């Protein structure tokens, strides 16, 4: 509840530092490829924040990343490492896709989309609940279970789509009959062609809800206590197992909802591998966002920019360079967070 005023310097300096390091490393890499950093970063910015289409694509990518980032952050606040956002996202997207196919075609879109959204949350939540339950009941390591589930769930979804649901000569299901979420391009022509859609508002609402949950509710109070100090939480009558289960369930549901961005907002069908890597990227988003919903929104934007920008500059520098850059951001944040804290505290000691 009454948190000590957030230390803004501690919260913002590490990412800023990481970004600065990544920029310089990026410069060096670009030079190594014989290109001009100014030119490449120019294209990158132009292709992401410089025009409405690129900006829309960045927002589109950020939408999914906000969901998977939250899906990692909530369990992490309870002390669990959810590596399963990848399959939770896919399961959510699949559930939404199937719901959209089953629903009657004439259904008004907000209602249909809501049904699909709930289906996505249930789909992802189920996948998240399994490691949660195993952790709560048997103390099984959620890291191992979520990693294994990624294989199992993705293989199962691939099989069911390929064997039962796919449109011939494709890896996707039939188009949904109802539940399509309008794109921004439907309201303003500027976004024409970009996949950005109203799911962005859903993701932002979820981020706000997560913040409220974590820092304002009893459930969040208990969840964070379990993550910070399980023994003390237990002593306070908070059941560890149930809290872990709940955290994984929420995490899975959040990732699952991320699936509607593609399925309802973009392609209107579930396709094998639609979010490949986005779940894992959620770990980076949560890490760089310091497990805070606001931080996650910002870091999702950052990674979305790098991802979309990577596509824009792909013609002159290899994709791998952007991947290196993302890795540099992650590493730099991981390293600079404690380092910045140390320096700040040390200088506070000598200056005060």
């Amino acid at each position, binding site marked *: *509840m009454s*948190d000590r005023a957030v230390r803004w310097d501690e919260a913002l300096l590490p990412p800023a530092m990481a970004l600065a390091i990544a920029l310089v490393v990026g410069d060096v890499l670009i030079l190594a490829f014989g290109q001009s950093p100014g030119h490449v970063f120019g294209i990158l910015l132009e292709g992401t924040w410089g025009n409405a289409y690129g900006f829309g694509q960045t927002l589109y990518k950020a939408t999914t990343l906000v969901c998977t980032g939250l899906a990692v952050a909530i369990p992490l606040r309870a002390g669990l490492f959810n590596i399963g956002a990848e399959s939770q996202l896919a399961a959510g997207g699949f559930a939404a896709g199937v719901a959209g196919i089953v629903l009657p075609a004439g259904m008004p879109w907000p209602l249909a989309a809501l049904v699909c959204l709930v289906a996505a949350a249930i789909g992802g939540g189920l996948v998240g609940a399994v490691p949660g339950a195993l952790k709560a009941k048997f103390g099984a390591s959620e890291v191992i279970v979520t990693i294994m589930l990624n294989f199992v769930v993705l293989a199962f979804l691939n099989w069911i789509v390929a064997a039962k649901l796919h449109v011939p000569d494709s890896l996707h299901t039939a188009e949904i009959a109802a539940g399509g979420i309008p794109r921004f391009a439907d309201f303003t022509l500027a976004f024409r062609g970009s996949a950005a859609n109203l799911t962005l508002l859903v993701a932002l609402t979820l981020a706000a809800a997560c913040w409220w949950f974590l820092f304002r509710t009893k459930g969040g109070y208990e969840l*964070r206590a379990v993550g*910070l100090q399980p023994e003390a939480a237990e*002593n*306070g009558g*908070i059941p560890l197992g149930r809290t872990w289960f709940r955290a994984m369930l929420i995490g899975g549901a959040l990732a699952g909802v991320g699936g509607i961005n593609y399925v309802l907002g973009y392609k209107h069908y579930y396709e094998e591998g639609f979010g490949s890597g986005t779940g894992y990227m959620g770990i980076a988003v949560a890490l760089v966002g310091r497990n805070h919903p606001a931080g996650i929104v910002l870091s999702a934007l950052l990674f979305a920019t790098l991802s979309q920008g990577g596509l824009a500059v792909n013609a002159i520098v290899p994709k791998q360079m952007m991947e290196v850059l993302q890795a540099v951001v992650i590493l730099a944040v991981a390293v600079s967070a404690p380092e910045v804290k140390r320096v700040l505290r040390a200088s506070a000691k000598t200056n*005060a």
Partner: protein
Amino acid sequence: MNEPAIALSGIAKSFGPVQAIRNASLTIANSEIHALMGENGAGKSTLMRVLAGMFTPDGGSAHVEGRDVTGWDTKAAIAAGVGMVHQHFMLVPTLTVAENVMLGREMTKGVSLDRAGAEDAVRALCERTGLAVDPARRVADLSVGEAQRVEILKVLFRGARILILDEPTAVLSPPEVQELWRVLRTLRANGGTVVLITHKLDEVIDISDTITVMRAGETVGRMATAGTTPSDIARAMVGREVSLAKRVASGVVVPPQATPRFEVRDLSVRGPTRARAVDHVSFTVQAGEIFGIAGVEGNGQTELIEALAGLRSCESGSILLDGRAIQSCVVSERIDLGLAHIPEDRHLRGLVLDYSIADNLIMGRQHQYAGAWSLDGARVAANAGAQVAKFDIRPADATLPARALSGGNQQKIVIARELGGERWPSVILASQPTRGVDVGAIEFIHARLRAARDAGAAVVLVSADLGEVIALSTRVAVMYGGTFVTIVNGDDATPLALGPWMTGAIKSGDAKAGTATAGAA
């Protein structure tokens, strides 16, 4: 060699807005045992950390053996032979004693670690200093007292000649304390200098040569131990007269009632190693009674209290609160039934250190503050404000994280939460309630426990401090090897009478066990 071993003068140190030390001066002669006394938060630990190179002082100067060492770092301090043993152990539980002692300066044989050599070296050091630990054992398997010996060994192994001990006796039983004194005296005889941070008056009288008292970040007095009385020191520490923990007439054994407030029948509990840690223990505590459990740590007290609190499952037996069986209730149900628990380790179980004081004050009672959509922040803050004032928690800012407070004030948060509610709890499980807490706070905590007792609560008190158990308890049980080997009336409880039971020198089966009014099954 006329130079004092340590000379600190005018040291100041602050953390952000908090001035931890303002003007501390300390002179310690060679080969003496020097007690640094003061309430928690008085700045003792901070001052010693400055000496040990962990903090850079904002002002003042530090000299060790005549050399100006102001602002040195830990590495330099260790090289100069200054070593500190902390209140909270910094050991790697999965490594052996020898490995922990070696950590940072491993002995090698070629490229591999020389395990046998390390163990021999540690064993030799043990013999020389009288610190008895088996170097081959894993630290995780050691008792707290043994772990502390490892900490001391670690420092001595690095060649410390000036040894700083931060509250070393907080975790020791009386025999262990005597053991430690013996070690310290040996060190002194060999030319070592010892600084003892403590707040226990009798200990100081017992062991030290000279005393320096700190209060509110300043050194306020220096005296030779010979010719000082405990009350002189106490007065210097708190700045006023205090009533020391003496046995207050409370030996009224409440007559057994049909339904006792709290009853434990035939309770068995398994410990972390799956061995039976509590073995068929039975006792009753009447309303208005403090039931003390004395004993050397590691004899099942921890497991017993955890089982009573619901943190550990019972193997067999029953627990009755006002006649109602609660052994299968979860923690929150027990809390709601009026069971309060002051855990032995406030850093582990008592507090969420990164939570604010206000948040910690509602732990376990959070559902009382929950509204439809959120916790009622205003009520949480109001509760915090009231408790901070009532229990004099300092600093009086409920938004500070618990981590930022001194040990005594942290314990006050726990006490305020467990005993500060509108209603008194029915049963209070108080485990080491004054461990690492200063004199003023001890007095306060004892008063709270007595008040709870007088209000009709049944109090189960576990403490490694025999004096505390004797001072407070209506009846005293001695726990040894997982059973109660004897239970005596408070008035009959003296260190002399209980000591042999605690060390297992007599067992309940012995002929002398006639004093036991109830015993192990």
